[in-house]
């Protein structure tokens, strides 16, 4: 099983590098994701109103196989910080895992510097909310209620505790977009949040916001690989139906 895995990684890497070069010349065309369209508006309103944006990064360790989701969340944090750093109330990033909280601080600082507002960066805006999923949720809920949050983006590894976060956001009249790489988390977000990012939309979100060639290329590679998998599944089913194996 090692060879096919290696082959997928190598093909993905080669495609990514090739498409990164090609994307510099062509402008991207994305399908509309309603959750992200509403998020744009909510971010614009939060900057105009001088209210706060909260970004939740979930509670998984970066040493597990779920590390992709918080990394995608950090990418989103960087883009959103660049857009909202000059708001009256700076954005807050919350994590349920200490290394993730430190990376969130680093990303916030990079976002402020990217926006040319490095002097406004405050380390306490990247926070550790708790060390277990429920304690992190319990630590985030008061922030939604007490810190004038008008928009909340939850992007990372969240489980069933998502319902508590969505409920707290609704009580605080904050627009919430929920996403998770966990199936239970996605289900709960779908039932309880105003907008949800399903499946790979979580990983595409920061490309929609920033549109750098690297991120656009990675969406294209995802699409190519997805069609390859669909083809393989159909071929396999057909072959099985015909009794070839």
């Amino acid at each position: 099983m090692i060879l096919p895995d290696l082959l997928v990684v190598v093909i993905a890497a080669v495609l990514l590098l090739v498409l990164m070069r090609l994307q510099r010349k062509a402008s991207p065309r994305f399908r509309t994701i309603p959750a992200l369209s509403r998020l744009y508006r909510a971010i614009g309103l939060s900057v105009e109103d001088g209210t706060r944006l909260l970004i939740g990064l979930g509670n998984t360790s970066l040493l597990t196989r779920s590390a992709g989701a918080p990394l995608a969340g950090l990418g989103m944090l960087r883009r959103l910080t660049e857009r909202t750093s000059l708001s009256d109330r700076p954005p807050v990033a919350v994590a349920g895992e200490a290394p993730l909280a430190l990376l969130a601080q680093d990303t916030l600082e990079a976002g402020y510097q990217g926006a040319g507002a490095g002097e406004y960066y405050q380390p306490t805006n990247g926070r550790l909310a708790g060390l277990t999923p429920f304690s992190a949720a319990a630590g985030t809920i008061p922030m939604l209620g007490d810190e004038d949050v008008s928009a909340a983006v939850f992007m990372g590894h969240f489980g069933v505790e998502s319902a508590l976060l969505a409920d707290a956001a609704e009580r605080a009249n904050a627009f919430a977009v929920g996403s998770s790489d966990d199936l239970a988390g996605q289900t709960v977000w779908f039932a309880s949040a105003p907008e949800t990012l399903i499946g790979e939309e979580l990983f595409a979100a920061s490309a929609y916001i920033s549109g750098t060639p690297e991120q656009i290329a990675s969406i294209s590679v995802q699409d190519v690989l997805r069609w390859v998998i669909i083809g393989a599944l159909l071929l396999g089913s057909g072959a099985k139906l015909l009794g070839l194996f």
Partner: protein
Amino acid sequence: MRIVALVLAIVAGLVVLIGYFIPVLAPIQNIILDWAIILVGTATIVGVFNLVLVHGSKIAQREKGRAYSVILLICLFGAFVFGLVLGPAHPWMRLIVNGVIVPVEATLMALLAVTLVYASIRLLRRRANAMSIVFLATALVMMIASATLPSGEIGALNNFLRPWLQHVLAFGGARGILLGVALGTLLTGLRVLIGADQPYGRG
């Protein structure tokens, strides 16, 4: 400094990745992973300092809800001192875990059940579309089919519809979503590996 961080991250990432495919590199991969575990432990201590800093400033600036911050800090320092003096395996330390943390998390879990029912009821008001109707109808069918009613089980639901929904539709959908998540994770990892995304330093 930024270049050094970038090179270190790329080299370490590549060695760990290649270590999965080439067994000769596995010992080096293990060493790097051990270092990472030590760093995560250290980062946890730094993270707890961040927690103290955030709640300390909340108390100093007399912000709303500062009483909870005071309680949190007292409990944090209390548990830390007791843990240092008695050790984590001491019965008193176990009492803190079993008598406080476990019941609090269980309470939140119970609250979650109520919150989810309430959220499902409001789902159609919040997002009235075909997907919401399918979601609620499926949840309802699954619950009725799984429940033991006074009249006994509903045979058609329990024996035919529930397994079909679970094993055909739900498994198929879940696998599709998980494939998308896996591809997204792979590409996110590769972007970090080639230095296109840098969730560290000032990249």
